C-alpha cells in the first residue's frame, strides 16, 4: 500500500476528558489510515471512544495529543470551519441534526452557500440536486425535521454534508436509531455514494453484522483503544481477539432458533 495515498492518517491520537477533577481517557493511542474510496468500519460499544475519535477528526474536539493528517494537511486541533470542505460528519440523532425551527431545505441551502460558495438561483438548484442524490424527492426540503421520519432526516443530513463535495464522510452510528429497513436503505446509500463520488467513509456502529456488510475493513475499539483491525470478511469469519468474538456472538440472528 502506497502510504502517501491515504486520504486520512491518524497517529497516536489521545483525548482525555476531565470530569470533576478526574481524568478519563476517551481515546488512547488511536492510529489508523483511510484510503480514498475506502469504507472503514469502527465497531465498539458505548464508552469505546469511537464517537470521540470521529469528533476529533471533524475538529469538534481538540485532541490531547497525536496527529491527524487530512489530505496532506495537519488538522489536529483546528476549527471545524477549516476542515469542513474536506471532511464531513453525520450524527446518530438525525432529527436533531437539523435546527428544529428551520426547514430542512433551508439548512441545506445554508451549507450550499457557505461550503460551495453559490448564491442566487443556483443554490436552490444545487439543493434539489443533492436531495435527489440521496434518493429523496426535493419536495421534502419544504418540511421541518419533526415532520419527517428518522430515515428521511438521515438522508437529508447526508445530502447536506455533500454540499461542499467532501472527500471523507464520518458516520457516527447513523443507523442505530433507525429500524431495520431504514438501516438497510442508508447502508445502500453510503455504498452508492462511494461508488459514484469516490467518497471515503468511516462507518461507526455497534452492529457488527451491518458493519461487515458495508465496510471493506474493520477496526474494533474497546475502552478507547483499537484492539483489532482487519478485512471485513476476516473479522466476521475468523476474529482473533476475545472481545471481537464476544461482539460476534452477540449478534442476534434470525437463523438462531428459539432456545428452550
Amino acid at each position, binding site marked *: 500500500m502506497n502510504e502517501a495515498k491515504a486520504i486520512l492518517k491518524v497517529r497516536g491520537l489521545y483525548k482525555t476528558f476531565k470530569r470533576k477533577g478526574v481524568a478519563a481517557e476517551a481515546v488512547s493511542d488511536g492510529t489508523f489510515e483511510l484510503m480514498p474510496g475506502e469504507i472503514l468500519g469502527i465497531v465498539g460499544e458505548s464508552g469505546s471512544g469511537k464517537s470521540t475519535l470521529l*469528533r476529533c477528526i471533524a475538529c469538534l474536539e481538540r485532541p490531547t495529543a497525536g496527529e491527524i493528517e487530512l489530505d496532506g494537511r495537519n488538522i489536529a486541533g483546528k476549527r471545524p470551519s477549516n476542515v469542513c470542505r474536506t471532511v464531513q460528519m453525520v*450524527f446518530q*440523532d438525525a432529527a*436533531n*441534526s437539523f*435546527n428544529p425551527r428551520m426547514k430542512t431545505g433551508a439548512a441545506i441551502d*445554508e451549507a450550499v452557500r*457557505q461550503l460551495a460558495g453559490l448564491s442566487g438561483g443556483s443554490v436552490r438548484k444545487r439543493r434539489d440536486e443533492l436531495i435527489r442524490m440521496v434518493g429523496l424527492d426535493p419536495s421534502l426540503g419544504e418540511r421541518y425535521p419533526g415532520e419527517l421520519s428518522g430515515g428521511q432526516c438521515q438522508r437529508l443530513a447526508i445530502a*447536506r*454534508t455533500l454540499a461542499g463535495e467532501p472527500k471523507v464522510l464520518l458516520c457516527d452510528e447513523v443507523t442505530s436509531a433507525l429500524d431495520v429497513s431504514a438501516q438497510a436503505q442508508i447502508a445502500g446509500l453510503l455504498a452508492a455514494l462511494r461508488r459514484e463520488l469516490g467518497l471515503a467513509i468511516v462507518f461507526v456502529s455497534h452492529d457488527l453484522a451491518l458493519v461487515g456488510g458495508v465496510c471493506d475493513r474493520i477496526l474494533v475499539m474497546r475502552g478507547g483503544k483499537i484492539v483489532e483491525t482487519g478485512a471485513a470478511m476476516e473479522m466476521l469469519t475468523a476474529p482473533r481477539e476475545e472481545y471481537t468474538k464476544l461482539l460476534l456472538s452477540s449478534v442476534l440472528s434470525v437463523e438462531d432458533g428459539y432456545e428452550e
Partner: protein
Amino acid sequence: MMKGRPAARAAVKRRVWVFLILAILLVALAVAAPALAPNDPNRTNSDFMKIAPCAQFPLGTDKLGRCVLSRVLMGARTSIFSSLCVVAASFAFGTVLGVLCGWYGGALDELVMRAVDILLAFPQMVLAIAVAGVLGGSLLNAMIAMGITGWTLYARLARSAVLTLKNEPFIAAEKLSGCGTPRLLCRHVLPNIFGPLLVNAATQIGTMMIGIAGLSFLGIGVTPPQAEWGSMINEARAYIQLAPWTVLAPGGAMLITVMIFNYLGDSVRDLMDVSGQSHE
C-alpha cells in the same frame, strides 16, 4: 411523528389568542387614554371632592376632586408602559449576557454568575427600595430599581438553555456547514431558547407592575401629581371608608391587568408544553 394531540393543542391555542387579544386591548387602552379620559386627570376641583360615581365622574372623584376614571386610564399608561420598558430592557440585557456566558463559559461566566448570586441574595423589593431611596423618588428611578434584579432571571434561563443546546447535534452540524459563531448564535441558538424566556417575560410584566406600584405606594416611585395606580392607592388609603372607589378603582385595574398578563404567560407555557410532547 405526531406532535402533541390536536384537540388539546387547539384548546391551548385558543386560550393564548384570548389572552393575547386582551393584553393588546389593554395596551391599546393605555395608548388611547388621553382620548378616552372623560375629564382632565390632573384637574382638581374643590366642589367635587370625594364624590361617588355619577354621570360626570363615572368612577367618582378623589380627595382633590380629580376624576378617578381619568386617573386610572392615565395610570394605565404609566404602569403598563413602565413595566413593559423594564421587562424589555431586562430581557435584552439578561438574554445577551446569559447566552454569552453559556456559550463561552470561562471567566465571563464565573464573573456574571457570581454577580447574579450576589444580587439574588437580597430580597428583590428590599433592594429596590434601597436603590430607589438612594436615587430619589421618580418613575425612572423606580424602573431602574426594579430592573437591577430583573435581568438576572433571563441571564440564568438563557445560560442553562444554551448549555443544553450546545450539545445538540445540529449545532455541530451547522459548525461543519461553515457557520461562524455570530450566525450560529443568532440564527440557531437564540430562536431555540426564546420559548421559556418569553413565558417568563409575560409573567414578569405583572411582577414589575406590582413592584413599581409598590415603590410608588411607599412614596419612592412616581412623584405626585402623576397618575399611577400604586400612588393612587397610597393617597386614598386614609379615607378608604369614606370613598372606597378611590382605592377599589386603581386596585381593581391593577388586579385585572396583572391577571391578564399572568394568564398570557401561563397559556404560552402550556402551548409550549403541549407542542413539546411528541410521541411515536
